[in-house]
């Protein structure tokens, strides 16, 4: 039964499935429920934990070499027990004197019981006494002694230790681990719980069995939903763990400055929330900051051009939705609208273009964010010159007479605008 849970804010960096534009495009054809939902969740049967016994060993009247030989033969013999009990050597072999300390040492090695064997050598006779303690049940399961002639090596490996091995039978099986049921959005993957990665089936259910009582931290992820990190305390009776998953943002708004100068407004829609986006944007060059002319000492705080660009973008995030810094990639196309005094038209020189985009989003509170987006642009060149100056050279001269060069013509084919970025604030709705 879940008795307590708490949200975790540990940031994580997990690359998503999208690694490039083709991946982004292909993801358009994925439905939200498709893929993961087709896989069946694994059902979990309760299991019996294997019992582990730590073996302590003490001798009297024996040399250390002889004592070691006896101890090794004991351990080897016990390891061959048919009762599914796992044998762990004592550390230290002699074990502590007190009962509590023996239990503590055993626990540290994940053992739930211990057995103390004491061997006394008297002339040609050997006296063996042993105690076996069941830690969870806090009781001795065996306590006996026997005397015999000094055993040969063959005896030690065949029957000498048999009474002790038989005593292992007295250790009862531990109670079964309880079964827990995860409930949430079908297809959700859960990591951090015993038994490896769990995936919720088409009914939104997955089960697992876990040792209890114990505290576990798990992370649940589902495309389109906010990742969920949670700590749960599991008790002996088992029960349900309900994943409270919030659907990711469906819309966001970008307020930005293109090249740090000209205001731009974008609205983004998420076919797959928090992951795959399409955007429509406007960038107005009607009023902008600077440029502070480099070939002219005059300070010009504002500048204006009768130009506007209309953008369409699509892309996807490479980072999980709850990461403080998220990376996204995509591609965009745009047209350039020139609103001259004659009429509003496409810019007759560079009417449209496209670009890849790579962006960094910084969201310290996992909500709204600041972002920097680099969009090196390729512009279709729709003009020619008739004289002796090539169109590329002509435009380069015309565009950058009073500023640094932010782009270049590639032959007479197209224009490459390398200095092109957006810096702004993104609001998730």
């Amino acid at each position, binding site marked *: 039964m879940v008795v307590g849970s708490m949200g975790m804010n540990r940031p994580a960096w997990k690359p998503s499935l999208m690694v490039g534009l083709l991946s982004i495009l292909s993801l358009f054809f994925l439905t939200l429920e498709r893929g993961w939902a087709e896989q069946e969740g694994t059902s979990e049967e309760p299991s019996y934990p294997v019992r582990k016994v730590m073996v302590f060993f003490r001798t009297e009247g024996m040399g250390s070499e002889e004592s070691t030989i006896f101890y090794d033969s004991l351990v080897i013999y016990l390891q061959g027990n048919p009762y599914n009990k796992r044998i762990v050597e004592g550390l230290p072999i002699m074990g502590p004197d007190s009962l509590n300390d023996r239990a503590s040492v055993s626990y540290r090695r994940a053992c739930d019981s211990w057995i103390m064997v004491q061997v006394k050598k008297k002339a040609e006779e050997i006296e063996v006494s042993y105690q076996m303690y069941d830690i969870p049940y806090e009781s001795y399961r065996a306590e006996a002694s026997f005397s015999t002639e000094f055993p040969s090596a063959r005896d030690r490996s065949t029957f000498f230790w048999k009474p002790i091995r038989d005593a292992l039978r007295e250790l009862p099986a531990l109670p079964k681990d309880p079964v827990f049921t995860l409930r949430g959005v079908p297809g959700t993957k859960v990591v951090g719980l015993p038994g490896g990665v769990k995936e919720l089936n088409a009914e939104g259910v997955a089960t697992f069995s876990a040792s209890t009582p114990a505290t576990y931290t798990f992370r649940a992820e589902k495309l389109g939903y906010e990742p969920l990190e949670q700590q749960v305390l599991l008790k002996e009776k088992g029960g349900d763990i309900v994943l409270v998953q919030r659907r990711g943002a469906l819309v966001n708004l970008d307020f930005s400055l293109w*090249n740090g100068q000209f205001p731009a407004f974008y609205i983004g829609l998420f076919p797959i929330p928090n992951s795959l986006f399409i955007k429509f944007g406007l960038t107005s060059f009607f009023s902008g900051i600077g440029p*502070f002319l480099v070939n002219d000492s005059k300070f010009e705080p504002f500048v204006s051009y009768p130009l506007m660009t209309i953008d369409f973008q699509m892309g996807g995030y490479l980072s999980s939705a709850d990461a403080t810094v998220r990376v996204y990639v995509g591609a965009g196309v745009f047209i350039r609208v020139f609103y001259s005094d*004659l009429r509003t038209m496409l810019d007759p*020189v560079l009417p449209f273009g496209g670009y890849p985009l790579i962006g960094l989003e910084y969201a310290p509170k996992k909500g709204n964010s600041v972002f920097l987006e680099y969009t090196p642009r390729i512009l279709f060149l729709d003009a020619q010159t008739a004289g*002796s100056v090539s169109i590329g050279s002509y435009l380069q001269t015309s565009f950058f*007479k009073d*500023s640094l060069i932010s782009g270049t013509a590639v032959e007479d084919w197209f224009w490459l*605008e390398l200095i092109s970025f957006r810096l702004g604030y993104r609001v998730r709705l």
Partner: protein
Amino acid sequence: MRQSLPLKYISFLNKTLIGKGVQTKELSIRIGFWMTTILVQAALTLAGCFAPTFNEGVSLASLSKPTLTYLHSVSTSRISIPTNQMYYYPVPINKIGGFLGIRIEDYPKLYYLKGSSLKGPIEGGDTIPTLPGLEFVYGLVFGNYATMPMLILHFPSLSAPSLGATDLLLFSYDVTSSSLQGPSVTQKSLSDLAVSLYFSITDPSVTVNDLHLLGLQLRASMTETEVYIDTFILQKSANRYYELSFRMNTAGTVVFDSNLVSSRNSNYTYLQFTNPSPFSDSMVGRYLFSPASKKSYMQIYQQGLYRTFFWDDEGTPKEISLKGRISSVLSSGNLVCNDGSYGMVYSPEGRFLFKFGLGTLSIPYELYPSGTPTLMFIEPIDQRDERGQLFYETYTLPTADLSKLEE
């Protein structure tokens, strides 16, 4: 052990903020915020150095260029002054080039450009100031374009009789010998033209000091070997306004052609505008006469604004509202004005007809190559800052096709 600056900074924050109960997570948020702020500042600073890939003039010019016919291109890298101190007068036939007038520290120089070769300069001896609202020089190409193109220049600021300077100069370029020559003829518009060729015959009592040249138009003739010089002259003592037209041939010989006032109304030889006259002997403006509409125009520059008047046979100046400077009165009678990046076309009465994109183009004049009224368009492409050359590209458009530029 020495700490790096960021570590020192974080250590300082730990002491100052964490000690006051600020959690580590919040600290990282604050650091992130400050780093973002610094990033924004850096981006803005960087952005200030770059301009968008856009030039309104280029875009507007590219709207009109497909309608124009490319004629020729010339270039030079030997002249380093800004293009706004340069005046290019193209010859309207292929591969011939044109005259390039420049002004350095108020002194004029004249070159001839053909292809990438440069001839000249011929240097002027006088400083040429600029009058408000006017160019410091106006020029017109005429003559035998293929063998001996000629250029007549008028300097408005030198027209006052008290200066004693010649305000009309004639130059020529010999295509065969590739030599720039001149000034082959110098004329004073008031004394050599108005007084000698007109007033000495019609009214010998008029002295040159009693005259004031309000404006002068160099007008192309249908005959390539002639050019008209239309003058608008005020006789100060009598408050009479004369419009006298002269003709100059390729030899530089000037003859009186016509009294434009009489050509409109044979009863008059001069105008007397009712008071207050918009024109006085303290102003010089842009005067134009249209043989097609028989209308005269005067554009003056007052208090930072252009004011334009026109009159016809009634002799009464009417003010019209035009945008920008008048570039030319066309053979059709329409007016073309340059309003920044746009060309504005008006009817002879000043009614707006349409506008078109000029951008980096400009219209120096209308000529009649092969008898067809043709507008010349030029575009400077200055690549001298990039260790390139200054190009002047010339385009033509039959005046009858001007309306094709209408968007």
